[in-house]
């Protein structure tokens, strides 16, 4: 991890925003490391979750919002469940990725493209259309060979529907997303 000049880059607003949006008291974290010990994704993270908690306490907005870990947390709830001070750590990770998204940071681009394609599928059909979602993801990332090996395993099973199963209330679905955008939400 690079050095951080804490006093020069302390951002009090950032700390307050994370606290308010997550409804968690960040000061309760005393760096016991239980969250990191139980996190199955630490091997893939650039910053382990307890250090993210410390960076947020220290108001290090840029360092926090640009890290890859935010895009690799699966919300498996291990950190939240095992925190001795009852901090909902997974909720804080969620809040941080909301903020990262709004500020345009997404160092794990493929993950963001997958999530975005998923939600667009929900917006358009009301339910996820799995084959369409994959086609969109491949078109956007150019990863044509992603999971190519799985095609002969899954296609004969007849499980991948070739057409979506749209809901009747398609307009209702569109309005949920539209109102969210109108209220300033970042998609």
């Amino acid at each position, binding site marked *: 991890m690079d050095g951080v000049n804490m006093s020069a880059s302390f951002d009090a607003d950032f700390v307050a925003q994370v606290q308010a949006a997550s409804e968690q008291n960040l000061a309760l974290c005393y760096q016991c490391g239980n969250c990191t010990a139980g996190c199955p994704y630490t091997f893939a993270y650039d910053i382990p979750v307890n250090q993210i908690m410390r960076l947020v306490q220290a108001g290090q907005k840029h360092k926090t919002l640009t890290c890859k870990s935010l895009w690799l947390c699966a919300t498996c709830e291990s950190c939240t469940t095992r925190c001795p001070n009852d901090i909902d750590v997974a909720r804080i990770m969620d809040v941080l990725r909301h903020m990262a998204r709004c500020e345009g940071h997404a160092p*794990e681009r493929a993950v963001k493209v997958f999530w975005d394609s998923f939600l667009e599928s929900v917006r358009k059909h009301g339910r996820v259309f799995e084959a369409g979602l994959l086609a969109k993801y491949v078109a956007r990332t150019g990863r044509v060979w992603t999971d190519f090996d799985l095609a002969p395993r899954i296609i004969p099973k007849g*499980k991948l529907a070739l057409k979506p199963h749209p809901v009747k209330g398609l307009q209702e679905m569109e309005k*949920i997303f539209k109102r969210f955008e109108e209220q300033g939400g970042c998609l």
Partner: protein
Amino acid sequence: MRGHSFAYYPGCSGLGTSMEYDSSTRAVCKALFVELHDVPDWSCCGSSPAHTVDHVLSAALSARNLAKVESTGRETVITPCPSCLTNLRTAGHRMEKPEFRARVNSLLDTPCKGDVQAKSVLQILFEDVGLEMIAASVQKPLKGLKVAPYYGCIMNRPPEIMQFDDHENPMAMDRILAALGAEVVPFPLKVECCGASYGVARKDVVARLSSRLLDTAVSLGADVMATACPLCQMNLDLRQEQASQHSGRAYSMPVLYFTQLMGMALGVAEAELGFDKLCVSPARAFEAMAASTVANKQTERGSRV
């Protein structure tokens, strides 16, 4: 016999990659006198992508469905999928705060009161139907089948929201499988994450986490793994070869939904259980089980003579 009746939320994968979970759930519920009423015009709960974008948006996608349940007058909705479950429950939990509920409702056409309870199919089978009824309904016991029960990460976590079973060592599926006559191995990674939805964007991550689960099931001598989650099943079954490539160990571990095993023991017609939808066929494990049952019977007869 007095049955149970619930609103049923199948979840999107039930229409596709986990269709055998949906069909076996419906068949098992029918066999155990549990009436399911599909949520009218249900839509996606937003799964993981929605809550990573925004909590109000995520709750609104769930709340549209909870409002549909409210409109039918039912108090409890059940779902086989832990990801749907966690979204429905989290939305309900957060909407207890009027201010949050108002923000959610500002995105919806039909406001949601938020008083519908969401439970998993596993929970109602364990708590409402009960082990006694399940054991009494067994027609073909799963004698001799060694099963590793795998719950996945969010069926029981976080405990404040999920309110079901033990969050570190859940036992509901273990005890159901045991009631069916199976030999349940104590699986220490019951609640460890399999890699979730990163299969597409980061399959290296899924291969690593899933191979650890498969390794453990193999080392315990399990014939099959039982899952309760469509994503876990997909990672462990469809992506099993990717996990093998990662670890250098060739797995051939059938990964079934616990409802498929229940259906089998309850004598449900095989067409409804969808064993042919699995990538790793359970046929060998089932044959071995049948053979050991025959052998046991012969030994019993032999000892009587």
